[in-house]
């Protein structure tokens, strides 16, 4: 079935241009979500050989638990965003859905593929469609954000291609499993690894590479902000993880710890002083990705579990906050924090839960993964725990800013929020509370992914053995 995933998405994207019916794109993205969900419950590693060629020569898709986990987050967020934008995007909706289908194609393709050049192609599909989505409104802010993202993103993916070229020149293969057998830790390989990791850091918005993200999110439609902060960030972290996995370098990684700590603190501090709410949420997303990168840098299984769990929780929380704030903006039409008063009890409750969960207040889901990160970092160095707790406190501080702007507003706007915009918010809120109260549900999802990450041999034999 997996072979037809990309076909369905691309065909529906181009059908949207010709026929202009929204339900095609919605059906395609929901269908892809259910496909990934079915994939997630498979027990063994799935290898799809395109055109029947055996792995070192042909293109394969290889889905282990880690892929399926990240793919589930991506497809879930994409389908919620699709439902959300039925009413949120008011004009030229067929264009929006075309680009959204292509972006989902790119995200899922990068996530599920087992071939490094195929990954680059999907990476570019993702990049180009997201440049188009950033420029969607075609006004001043959108164009400015779009060209900044375009030049930075294209330079980053060119450097990623350079890394792939070096890898191909050194080993003569493009398959992940085959590469894992052939790489060594000499200097040339490390240059290639650094270039590819840099390209993914740009997508995940790790700190020296993060500058496109607030500018791009300030110009985009708000559903895209949700997708950038959740799915694209998760994908960037996945890319870093997969490359380190292929190179067999998943032990204590000082680079990721330093980058992650800087990202965590800088993102949180910058979010503290923002006035525009979209920009604040963008910086907040950067800060949360910092936690994840720091946790996966520890190289222990506790660290991986904490990091992957935080990817899941960050997706839920940041999606919830972006969509809830999007509802507020839908009614008031203002993006500044001090003009966001609204009279809608459901929305206020959902936003409050989102803010508290982001700050890591028990018994919500943000607390669980942050607690795991603190525990994992205590084993490495107590200093990191202190820094992480400081960043958490700053998170609560800027959360309070959203709180006070929503709850203590002087003027409150009236308005009716469409049901299709409210439903994703409520779904995400319920998930936040459920995962917070029963943390072992989330752990049951995360633990197979960690096991898959620690078992390199399984991945290689599944691809190359049993031709």
């Amino acid at each position, binding site marked *: 079935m997996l072979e037809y995933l990309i076909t369905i998405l691309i065909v529906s994207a181009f059908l949207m241009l010709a026929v202009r019916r929204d339900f095609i794109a919605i059906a395609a993205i929901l269908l892809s979500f259910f496909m990934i969900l079915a994939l997630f419950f498979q027990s063994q590693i799935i290898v799809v050989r395109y055109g029947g060629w055996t792995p070192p020569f042909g293109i394969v898709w290889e889905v282990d638990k880690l892929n399926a986990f990240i793919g589930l987050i991506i497809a879930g967020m994409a389908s919620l965003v699709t439902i959300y934008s039925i009413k949120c995007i008011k004009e030229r909706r067929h264009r929006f859905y075309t680009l959204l289908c292509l972006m989902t194609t790119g995200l899922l393709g990068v996530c599920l593929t087992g071939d490094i050049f195929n990954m680059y192609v999907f990476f570019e599909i993702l990049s180009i469609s997201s440049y188009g989505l950033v420029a969607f409104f075609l006004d001043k802010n959108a164009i400015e954000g779009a060209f*900044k993202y375009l030049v930075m993103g294209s330079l980053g993916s060119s450097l990623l291609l350079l890394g792939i070229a070096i890898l191909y020149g050194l080993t003569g293969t493009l398959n992940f499993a085959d590469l894992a057998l052939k790489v060594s830790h000499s200097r040339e390989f490390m240059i290639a690894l650094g270039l590819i990791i*840099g390209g993914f850091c740009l997508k995940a918005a790790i700190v020296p590479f993060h500058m496109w993200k607030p500018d791009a999110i300030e110009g985009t439609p708000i559903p895209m902000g949700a997708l950038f902060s959740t799915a694209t960030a998760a994908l960037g972290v996945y890319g870093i993880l997969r490359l380190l996995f292929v190179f067999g370098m998943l032990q204590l990684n000082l680079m990721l710890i330093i980058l992650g700590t800087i990202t965590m603190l800088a993102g949180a501090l910058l979010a503290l002083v923002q006035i525009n709410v979209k920009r604040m949420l963008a910086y907040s997303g950067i800060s949360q990705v910092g936690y994840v990168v720091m946790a996966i840098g520890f190289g222990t299984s506790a660290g991986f579990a904490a990091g992957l769990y935080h990817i899941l929780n960050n997706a839920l929380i940041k999606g919830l906050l972006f969509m809830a704030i999007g509802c507020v903006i839908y009614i008031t039409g203002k993006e500044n924090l001090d003009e966001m008063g609204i009279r809608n009890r459901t929305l206020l409750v959902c936003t409050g839960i989102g803010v508290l969960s982001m700050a890591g207040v028990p018994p919500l889901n943000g607390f669980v993964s942050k607690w795991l990160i603190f525990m994992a970092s205590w084993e490495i160095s107590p200093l990191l725990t202190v820094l992480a707790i400081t960043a958490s406190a700053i998170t609560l501080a800027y959360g309070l*800013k959203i709180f006070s702007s929503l709850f203590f507003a002087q003027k409150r706007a009236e308005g009716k929020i469409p049901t299709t915009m409210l439903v994703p918010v409520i779904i995400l809120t319920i998930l936040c509370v459920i995962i917070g109260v029963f*943390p072992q549900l989330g752990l049951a999802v995360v633990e197979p992914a960690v096991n898959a990450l620690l078992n390199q041999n399984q991945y290689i034999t599944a691809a190359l053995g049993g031709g």
Partner: protein
Amino acid sequence: MFEYWSFFILTFAGFVGLGLIIYLLGSRKARAEERKYETYTCGEPFPRVNVGPDNLYQAIKKNLGIEDIQKIHTGKLSDYLLWMLAGFVVVLLMVMML
């Protein structure tokens, strides 16, 4: 399951305390302004000062050096690209050191 909840109270108190400290520290200056108005308007109805969310953390912004971090984000594409290339160089050097 139990181990996640054993430090429930401690974390909660810590978060709320730190958040409150930052909140109070941030809004101190704005409150001082308000009081000044009260003192110097002699019995007349003084203009109401509304403390919005954008001047919540002005003191922290001035004192913790966040303004310097904000100044790095100049909004110019060339500076962004230079930072990005610097990041690539740093990542390359660090990966080679591993």
